């Protein structure tokens, strides 16, 4: 997932982020995400229900709670909330 997010292409991003329908990520966002260093702490993975989960992660040293959605049996990122310091 970290590699896909940093891949720098729409195709790689769609492997990491749940994108509904014909949504296309803005080129600037593709570039911005490619520059980020995402590290997911897999030990914190928690399922909410059969389709939803959350996991802790850091992006360039900042802590986030990352929300995941199971899409065709693959967990993908839907959103993230910054953890208050």
């Amino acid at each position, binding site marked *: 997932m970290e590699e896909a997010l940093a891949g720098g292409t729409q195709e790689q991003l769609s492997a990491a982020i749940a994108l509904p329908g014909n949504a296309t990520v803005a080129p600037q*966002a593709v570039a911005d995400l490619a520059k980020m260093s995402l590290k997911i702490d897999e030990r914190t993975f928690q399922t909410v229900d059969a389709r939803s989960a959350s996991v802790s992660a850091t992006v360039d040293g900042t802590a986030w709670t990352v*929300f995941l959605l199971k899409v065709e049996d693959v967990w993908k990122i839907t*959103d993230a909330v910054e953890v208050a310091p």
Partner: protein
Amino acid sequence: MKRLALLLTACLLALGVASTETAAASAAASCPRAPSVAPATRSETPVVLVHGWTGDTGDFKKNLTPFLTKRFGKRVHVYSFDYHEWSTAWPDDPHISACLASFIHRITDPAKRPAVVVAHSMGGLAIRFAGSPAYVKNPITSKQVSHVVTLDTPALGSPWGGSALAGLQSTKADIAINKLRQSGGLPAKSGNAWTCLAPQQQGKPVPGCPVAPYLPKHVSITTIEGSVTVDRKLFGATLYSVGLYSDAIVPVSSSRTYVNSGPAGTSPVSPGLIHSRQVKCSVPSTSLYGPIEEIPGVGLVPLLANTFGDKQAMADLEAGKVTATNFLLLAAAQLQSKVTCNHSTILHNNDAMRITADEVEAHLLPDSSPPPPRSSSSLKVGAFTMALPAGYKFDRVSSGPVIGVAAGPDGSPDQNPNNPSQFRVLLAGATSSEGRYDTTWVPEECFLDMNSVKRIVDDRKVTIAGHKGLMNHFRYTCTDVSYSWVVWETELGSTRFSAEYIWTGPDRGVKELTSALAAATWRPEL
């Protein structure tokens, strides 16, 4: 859980904007309360504010009332009609419809000054019932009301109304709603508006709920719709924008669809006097978590997050539905005060208030000045006066509403961000906030495919009132409404004038169109 109850209750209550402020005015003797209300004088244009479901006059006190009073001073007299004691009833109820009609008669009849009505949410349906002899013994006509402005009025209902919430079963929402019902957190179903506000289609009304009649002949209407966009962000980067196609409570397709919202077998009597304006706002997705993240124990935050990745949720949004997949996104958008054009915040949205004031200004009656002559060398539109070229007389002087023209699709290649194959069409014109007539466009938001625009008559030469001109005739179909539009252009000296006429329904003959154009307000191309 109390917080969760508040969340969902607030969404449901948002069809009206609940307030605890007291009534400012009421209606006639047979109505609940009848404090003395001074009628408008001949120098004042009455402006009547009508609140929505479960609202009251306090909804306007801190925003629209002072805004209009500050801008127009003694040129207007702002009234608020209060029906809060009956505001859970469908507005065919005489305590709403007849009392509103009576109230307006009382303030407009003595000086014979028609009012401009500004209505929020269900209030926009109340004024329609108030103008129907089928529901009101002494209905309002164009003598009492010249123009109606609606803010987020659910002309075709709201997905939050009626039994739509039953569709949220088997989710955490279902659990939450059950808890709300057990605790009394949901609004009491003491009135039938709750049922009647369910989504509906023309010709298929909600059972037991009369469809709001169209406004009386010659009464124009401008609908203002809030349209929320959420910028989906991830780690601070903006991925793309998600249109909610609604103000979070009322879909844009409902609030702008006056023309298709009347009883089956009837049609709006003044289709050329119907306009729409959309007020847009956007908010980052990250700001939507605030209203729900404090709710303990239910775990709604991941559910909201997953909305953004859910294809069905997005499809349901576009279809104007509240479902298990998207209800939290809509609820959060309604509850987050940073969303500046949701169903509640639209009432103090600067753009919405400015548009409303512009609409009022366009219908201000001239101050005790003599009526304009039938023939004149100048054209007066609001505060703007234009001298006609030497040797010409303008034979239809108008100080009334400006009927604008449509910007053709080629002139407005404004793409739908969610569907690049669609573009925006703008209809109608307006006076600027300074009272100067300019080229400010009033948008009728309608995303069209190019193929849906059909030119029927190309540059047909037509003489109207002795002036030779060219008439162009278009027909186009939006997702939920079809319009025909004819625009006629002529030159008076070096100045080009145009008039337009818009209607729904079957094609009309040139003779009929010529007559309609002759009666329309002509506007100069400045």
